[in-house]
């Protein structure tokens, strides 16, 4: 784990207790902790950032 990823996870853990009353935020916090950008079947299941 590099320093940046470690930092990201630390921030996500810091926020974990935070926003569990929001389902969307809870999911995003889990994704950040797992260093993921989305679920595998979601809109960006592959690297498609130029979706227009």
């Amino acid at each position: 784990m590099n320093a940046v990823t470690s930092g990201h996870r630390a921030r996500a853990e810091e926020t974990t207790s935070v926003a569990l009353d929001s389902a969307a935020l809870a999911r995003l916090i889990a994704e950040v902790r797992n260093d993921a950008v989305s679920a595998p079947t979601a809109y960006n299941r592959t690297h498609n950032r130029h979706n227009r």
Partner: protein
Amino acid sequence: MGRAVAIDTVLVKLASRCNLDCDYCYVYRMGDQAWRLQPKIMSPETLEVLAQGLAALVADQDAPLSIVFHGGEPLLVGPDRFEAACSTIRRWLPSPVGLHVQTNGLLLSDAVIDVCARHDVGISISIDGPAWMHDRHRPDVRGRASHAAVVASIHRVLSHPTGQDLLSGLLAVVDLEADPAEVYAFFKSVGAPSVDFLYRDGNHDALPFGKSSVVSTEYGDWMVRLLDVYLADPSPIRIRLLDDMLRLILGGRAVKEGVGDEDYGILVVETDGSITKNDTLKSADGSDRFTETWTVHDDLKSIVSSTSFLAYHDSQKPSSPKCLSCPELRVCGGGMPTHRWSARAGLTNPSVFCEDQMRLIQHMRMRIAPRKVA
């Protein structure tokens, strides 16, 4: 030859024409007429050469690559040519190279969906929201409503045995006159797993529709209302733009162009095989063309390693003093290049949506921060 830009997305214009006449289109409705000179569809020979070139490029770079069939409306090529196009790409670029089609949905027949399933092609469908707002912006070329046909196509995809995996998401353009709660409820009602929102295109010389000035926050206000609806939903779908920005605030990563500070590389290939810059720059005085006349017949690695391509690539990064000193740049990312453009300063401006994004980011932080101390 310098360092090679890692290409993560290739937009392949299978067709240069469209069967819709959207009033906000950056290809046909914002002054650029270059599409008139393009062949209506890409030839099989051009696609074959492109696929071969991309295979060599992928083999030479570490970054993953995704190819997006685009247009115009890419499905205007018809199901047989579409199948052949998918087959050509997959012969040279098998999974896990991503392959997607961005479509307005009108020609998304069962046959086309089957083709997508066979070749692992993700489907993204453009639809703006409920019928009353969609149809006033996205009529077909004869002025007829398109909404019902698009919704039928979404259901057709979702009812396919692999439909949940095939549907990458829906893509909407913000209509400031619509209620964000109504728009969000609509997208949930059609069964969409996810949706992304685009702002109306514009630049410093031609402000986006609905923005009264560069310091006004009409789009930011709208997105704040959408965010509040989203965060209050106990079973939310995904909203890519909001997810990306929230994830960045939480210390994570984003994938969307113009958000965050990750590097990105895009190739756009027109139907004649010519290679252009980010195609949204068409709305910035047609500044999407390179000085060089590159085509798929040139060596792609040489192109993405050239001084000219590197200069273009670097120009996409925010460069205005305001952006470079902004504490929110890591989240905002500076916005899409076309939204930064002016005739006087080129791309060295903040986005015309700078204040909108600041409004949204501040609201996101407010929604997150109070809970941190809990």
